[in-house]
């Protein structure tokens, strides 16, 4: 029986062998090709920069030498790579980057422990920096670097320095609202008038940071009551700033609490067809807080001098100018004025995020956010 079976289907295995040889040819070719392509793509050092990076540094590139600075960057490649290219070219310090979300990279540094390859961590929002500080993974930054920014934009314990700012604003749909109807304070958003019309990125890092400062400034009772009232007023939960700006642009919501930066990107990309604009709350309102992006040096770094050099570079005039002209952020150092399209920044007076005060504050913030019921909406 077994023999007969084998005999009867004799042809199947043999023809399949021929097939299976062919199966293997294609993947092997792909493999060989891709390995080849990778080995060829190693480029030599550039002699000078081109494109946006050349706006930061137009001269000839120095020869690459010395310790390499490894950066974990929560700021995205699209925005920061020209800055890092300019740094490597102008100073000759070799740079390697791991890109990712700030939160994920902070978790990675923690999992890395003392053996982390990272020398510098750039965070898009304060939370991840507070986390690393609480785990005692941050080193101290030289005072001559810290002194480049005003005291409210740097750590009291010398562990981080702000290098650009994003302001909290209210994004609104221009077809549904007149400027006169817009509120002067976040506290007005709990009015009946705004029922079901406001988007909140309640689980997003920058909102959580903002709300933690809110608690710090107004006290837990006021902050909790405000958020509960917002939920009672049918505020809509969104996952992040960008999706709120999109939703406001297409009229899904009338207004939303976001960082100023995203609407500038949408307008730059879509022009007139994007139907939303930023509205600034009153200067002394908590809604006008400045959220800063921060640079830190890891405690375990083996290139402390080069790391300090990089931080100093981020705070230099050409780079600060780049941040405000190309990424529409607020400069924090070197006396650079904010781009004229940005609203003047008097909001600084109420202080930017104080990471140190935030230290253990996130757990409580999360408790209040969860208890508000916004996540179940």
């Amino acid at each position, binding site marked *: 029986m077994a023999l007969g079976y084998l005999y009867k289907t004799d042809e199947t295995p043999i023809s399949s062998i021929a097939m299976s040889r062919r199966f293997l040819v294609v993947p092997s070719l792909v493999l060989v090709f891709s390995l080849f392509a990778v080995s060829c793509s190693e480029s030599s050092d550039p002699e000078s920069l081109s494109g946006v990076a050349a706006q930061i540094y137009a001269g000839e590139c120095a020869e690459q030498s010395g310790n390499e600075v490894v950066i974990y960057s929560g700021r*995205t490649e699209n925005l920061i790579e020209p800055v890092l290219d300019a740094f490597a070219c102008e100073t000759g310090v070799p740079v390697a980057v791991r890109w990712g979300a700030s939160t994920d990279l902070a978790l990675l540094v923690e999992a890395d422990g003392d053996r982390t390859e990272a020398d510098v961590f750039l965070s898009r929002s304060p939370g991840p920096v507070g986390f690393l500080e609480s785990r005692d993974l941050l080193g101290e930054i030289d005072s001559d670097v810290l002194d480049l920014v005003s005291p409210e934009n740097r750590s009291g314990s010398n562990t981080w320095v702000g290098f650009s700012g994003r302001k909290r604003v209210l994004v609104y749909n221009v077809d549904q609202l007149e400027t006169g109807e817009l509120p002067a304070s976040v506290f007005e958003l709990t009015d009946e008038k705004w029922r079901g019309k406001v988007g909140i990125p309640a*689980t997003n890092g920058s909102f959580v940071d903002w709300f933690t400062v809110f608690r710090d400034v107004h006290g837990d009772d006021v902050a909790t009551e405000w958020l509960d009232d917002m939920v009672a007023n049918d505020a809509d939960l969104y996952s992040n700033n960008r999706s709120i700006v999109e939703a406001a642009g297409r009229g899904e919501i009338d207004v939303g609490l976001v960082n100023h930066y995203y609407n500038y990107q949408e307008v730059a990309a879509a022009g007139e067809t994007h139907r939303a604009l930023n509205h600034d709350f009153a200067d002394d309102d908590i809604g006008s807080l400045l959220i800063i992006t921060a640079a830190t040096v890891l405690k375990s770094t083996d290139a402390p001098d080069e790391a300090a050099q990089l931080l100093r570079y981020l705070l230099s005039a050409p780079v600060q100018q780049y941040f405000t002209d190309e990424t529409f952020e607020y400069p924090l150092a070197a006396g650079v004025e904010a781009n004229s399209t940005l609203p003047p920044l008097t909001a600084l007076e109420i202080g930017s995020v104080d990471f140190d005060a935030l230290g253990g504050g996130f757990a409580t913030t999360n408790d209040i956010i969860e208890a508000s019921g916004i996540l179940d909406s």
Partner: protein
Amino acid sequence: MSMTPRSAPVGLRLLGGVVALLFSGPALYLLWRNFDESADPFGLLGSAPTLEPLGRTLQLAVAVSVSAALLGTFLAWISIRTDVPGARIWRVLLPIPLVFPTFLGAAAFIRTLSPGGLVSDLSAEVGVDLTRDIRGFSGAWLVLTLFTYPYVYLPVAARLRQLPGSLEESARVLGDSPTMTFRRIVMPQIASSVMAGSVLVFLYTISDFGAVQLMRYDTLTRAIHTNHLARPPVALALSLILLVLALVVVVGERIASKRLVAVTTNRAQRPMIYRLGRGRWVSWGVVSAVFSLAVIAPLATLTDWAWDGLRRSSTGGRSLTIDSDKVIESSVNTLQVSVIAAVVAVLAVLPVAFLVGRYRSKVGSWSHVVVVSTFALPGILIALALTYWVRSSSTANDLFAGTMLLLIFGLVVRFGSLALGVTLDAVRAVPGGFHDAAATLGAGKLRRFRTIDLPIMGPGLLAGGGLVLLSVMKELPITLLVAPLGFPTLTTRIFQSFEDAFVAEAGIMAVVLVAMSSLLSWFLVIRRADHL
């Protein structure tokens, strides 16, 4: 004559054990960190902030697996066993939804159906309002069903191709209606494939973060994400609960599948093709509708973004932040890592498949459970676990940290489960009689493997590799965190562009990603695998 039961060779069992150990790295990490951080998973299980997202996770996972099972089985049946117009083309097109990263697919979906999106614009032209606010449970369910049905479709299609037509013909001759034939003959034969596929859908759904986040549906992965920095012990405990849930489901499936009838295969016989008559075009309409929703809709939006960006940069507007060099670089990296990971994944699960499929060994069962349940863990946890273990030993750190090897390993651990199901089916498809006969004729083990197993299993192994390949192409967290420095892939660059609202850049690279994976799946998997 049936295969004589024998115990597995020691070498194979050892190999199976090693695979299980390597795959259990993330689980051991969770156990250790829970202990180390004094997390309290049992205490959390009783609290509302845990139970509510857990309940929602379960609801969503059950709903998505049921609908994906129905949809995947239906599409496999229609495209393999009927004379639906364009059956051959559908076989190439239907697996494509697998290549969309869910964070991108969900976003494109929202954009397409929302006010101002393509669908609502077009429908407004003809006076219909098709605008939908897709969010919450229904949004997450829809998107995940559309993007995960291939996990059921691919193995069921493979199984349907291999079913001998004779049984069905006999049933029809004896007077069974087509539906009765399907229920009594076909259903029992494909049940194990449907179930194995549905388990993958279930596990993928509980591991997903991209779609549930964008659809604003609060599940366990979202709770893990928000607690990661603020309250690490809570995040660790929730992750452990997720893993236990996966274990329960996988063990349950193992027990249930033992009760199913053994499958018969006969590759010499053509499968029976049903004539649908007038139903042909109805079926064509249904398949087209599914494909339009799952592929055309998101792809149209992505193309729209890409086109806008290209036009803008060429007419003096804002220039793009990527150039062709960057697109090529990330395409090559994507290709390289996904091909290598696919090959390694198939090799890694092969011993487990042999242990389970041919020897019913205990070691095999354990390895199988470990490999499959790991699929429920979000990629970020796998990345953190690998990093933690490698960095904890100075030798491992020197050898593996920041290497390509570690990246491939992480991807294989994440997606090995996808290759295992199909590989297992392939192992089972080798008739035991062949081996007995060949052994009688004096063929050694290796020769039998080369001349009997490999040729018959070839298509199945390719399909398994294909599933891994397509999944690696869209993988994000492991690639971001574990890859060697300066190793961008299409998906990592899409993610970054998208994060900062550079939608044109994201669109361009997404179109490249979809085109590349469609081509690959055609060349490597579908065109060559004669059983698909």
